[in-house]
C-alpha cells in the first residue's frame, strides 16, 4: 500500500465572496500521478495552488479546511510557506523561464538556498537537466539565454528548475496547454519516468492526456469534487452521470 503524501480535508477556497473550491476531501498517494480534470473555472487550478500555498500570493484569497503534507497541516501557524514550496514544486501553464542563462535557471533554486559551490552546482544542474530529458539538447549551450529555447524545451527547463531542489511533489498546472503534440508527448513520457521518484499532481484539460498518464483522476465541477478514483474507475466505470458526460466529451 502506498503512503499518503497529501491529505486534503474539507477544503474551501474563497476569493472575496466567490466560492472557488467547495468542501473537497481527497488524498494524494506517493509516487503516483493524479490528474485533476474538469471544465474551465471548476476550481482545479485554485485547488492546485492551495497545496504549495501559492494562493497566499492572491489578494483576497481565503482558505478553510485542512491540507496535511505527511501529516502536518500546511496552513498551521508554525508552517513556513518558503520551506513548503521547496518540498512541493510547481510548473506553470505558460513556460516561465527567467531571462537568464539555462544554467542560471536551473541553479536558481539552489542559489537562493545559499548553495554556491561551483562543482556542486554544475553536477546538480546536469543531473536535473538529465532528469527533465533536456540535457542532450542543451549541454553545449548552458550559458545561452533560456529564452532561445523552444516552448517545449522551456517547459522542460522549468521542470528541471523545479527538480533541482529535490521536491517531494511536483504540482503542474496544465503544463502542456501551450505546447504542440510532439512536445506534449515528450513531457508525458518524462512524467511517467519521474513518478518513480516523486509524486505528481497535474491539472489538465486534455482528457486523453489524463487517461494516458494518470494513476488517479479527480473530476471537479463548479468548485466541487464530483468523483475521484483510479483512472480506470473514472474513465471506464464512472459512478456519477456528470463524470460520464464530461469524460465522454459531452460538455467541456
Amino acid at each position, binding site marked *: 500500500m502506498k503512503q499518503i503524501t497529501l491529505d486534503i480535508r474539507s477544503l474551501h477556497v474563497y476569493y472575496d465572496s466567490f466560492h472557488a473550491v467547495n468542501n473537497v476531501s481527497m488524498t494524494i498517494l506517493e509516487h503516483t500521478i493524479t490528474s485533476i480534470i474538469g471544465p474551465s473555472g471548476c476550481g482545479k487550478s485554485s485547488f492546485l495552488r492551495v497545496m504549495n500555498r*501559492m494562493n497566499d*500570493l492572491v489578494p483576497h484569497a481565503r482558505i478553510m479546511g485542512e491540507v496535511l503534507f505527511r501529516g502536518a497541516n500546511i496552513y498551521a501557524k508554525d508552517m513556513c510557506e518558503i520551506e513548503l514550496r521547496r518540498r512541493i*514544486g*510547481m510548473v506553470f501553464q*505558460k513556460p516561465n*523561464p*527567467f*531571462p537568464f542563462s539555462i544554467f542560471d535557471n536551473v541553479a536558481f533554486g539552489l542559489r*537562493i*538556498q545559499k548553495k554556491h559551490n561551483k562543482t556542486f552546482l554544475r553536477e546538480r544542474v546536469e543531473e536535473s537537466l538529465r532528469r527533465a530529458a533536456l540535457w542532450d539538447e542543451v549541454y553545449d549551450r548552458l550559458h545561452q539565454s533560456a529564452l532561445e529555447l523552444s516552448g517545449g524545451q522551456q517547459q522542460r527547463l522549468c521542470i528541471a528548475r523545479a527538480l533541482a531542489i529535490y521536491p517531494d511533489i511536483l504540482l503542474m498546472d496544465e503544463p502542456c496547454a501551450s505546447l504542440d503534440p510532439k512536445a506534449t508527448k515528450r513531457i508525458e513520457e518524462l512524467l511517467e519516468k519521474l513518478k518513480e521518484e516523486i509524486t505528481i499532481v497535474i491539472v489538465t484539460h486534455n482528457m486523453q492526456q489524463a487517461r494516458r498518464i494518470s494513476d488517479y483522476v479527480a473530476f471537479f465541477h463548479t468548485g466541487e469534487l464530483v468523483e475521484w478514483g483510479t483512472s480506470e474507475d473514472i474513465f471506464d466505470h464512472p459512478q456519477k452521470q456528470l463524470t460520464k458526460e464530461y469524460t465522454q466529451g459531452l460538455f467541456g
Partner: protein
Amino acid sequence: MRKSADRLFIAGALAALGVALLTLSSLLVTVLFDGLSRIDMQFLTSFPSRKPEEAGILSSLVGSIYLTGLTALIAVPLGIGSAVYLEQYAKKNWFNLLMEINIGTLAGVPSIIYGLLGLGLFVRILHFDRSLLAGSCTLALLILPIVILASREAIRTVSHDLQHGAFALGATESQVIRRVVFPLALPGILTGVILALSRAIGETAPLIAIGALTYIAFLPDSLFAPFTALPIQIFNWVSRPQPAFHENAAAGIIILLVTTLLFNAAAILIRNSLYSRSARPS
C-alpha cells in the same frame, strides 16, 4: 483621397519635427559660433575673473560634476527603495494612494520651490550653509519624484509569471526582488535615472535660491565647502554687459552640453552592458 490625406498628415508631422530641429540647430550653431573659439586649456583650467579673457570655468565644471555625483548618490538609492516599497510591499489603502498622487504632483512642482525648501531646510535648519551638500540634497529632492516614477514603471513591467516562478522555488519576497525583479527592471530604472540627472545638471533656479555663489576661486574640498555650478556661471556671464563675457557664456554652454552628453553616454553604456550580462552566467 485617402492617400492625399495620409500625405498631408505625414507632411504636417515632418513640419512639426522640422520646427523643433531648426530651432535646436540654430541655437546650437549660434552657441558654437560664439563660443567655440573661446574654449582652450586656459578656459578649462582657470577660475572666474573680472577680466573676461582671464576667466575660466574650472570651479563651476568641477562643482557641477561633484554636485551631480552627490545628487545621484542621494536620490538613486532613495528613489529605487521607495519604488520597490510602493510596487512590491505597499498595500492598496487610502494612505498609499494619497502618497502616489502626491509623488506624481511633486514631479511637476517648479524647481524654484525646491530651492526655497532647500534654503529653509538644508541651509538654515540643518546648517549645511551654502554648501555642496545643501545643493546636492536640494537637487536630490527635486529629482526624487522622477526617479521614483520611472523606477516604479520599470518594476511594474517585470512579469508576475516570473515572480511566481521564483516564489514556487521557495524564494522569499526579498530574494524575488533582489534576484528577479531588480535585475530585470534595472535597464528601465537607469533610463529614468539618466533623465533625472540630466535635469539636475542643468538646474539653475534652486541653486540660486539656496544662495550658491558665482565667484568661487577654489575647488570644493569637503561636503560643506561652498560651490558653484555651470548653469550659475553661465547665468552670471550672460547678465554682464561686456560682450566678451557673452562669449564666455557661449563657451560655458558648450561645456555644459558636452558634460551632459558624456554623462548620458556613460550611463547608457553601463545600462547596455548590464542588459546583455543578464543573459550570461553570473
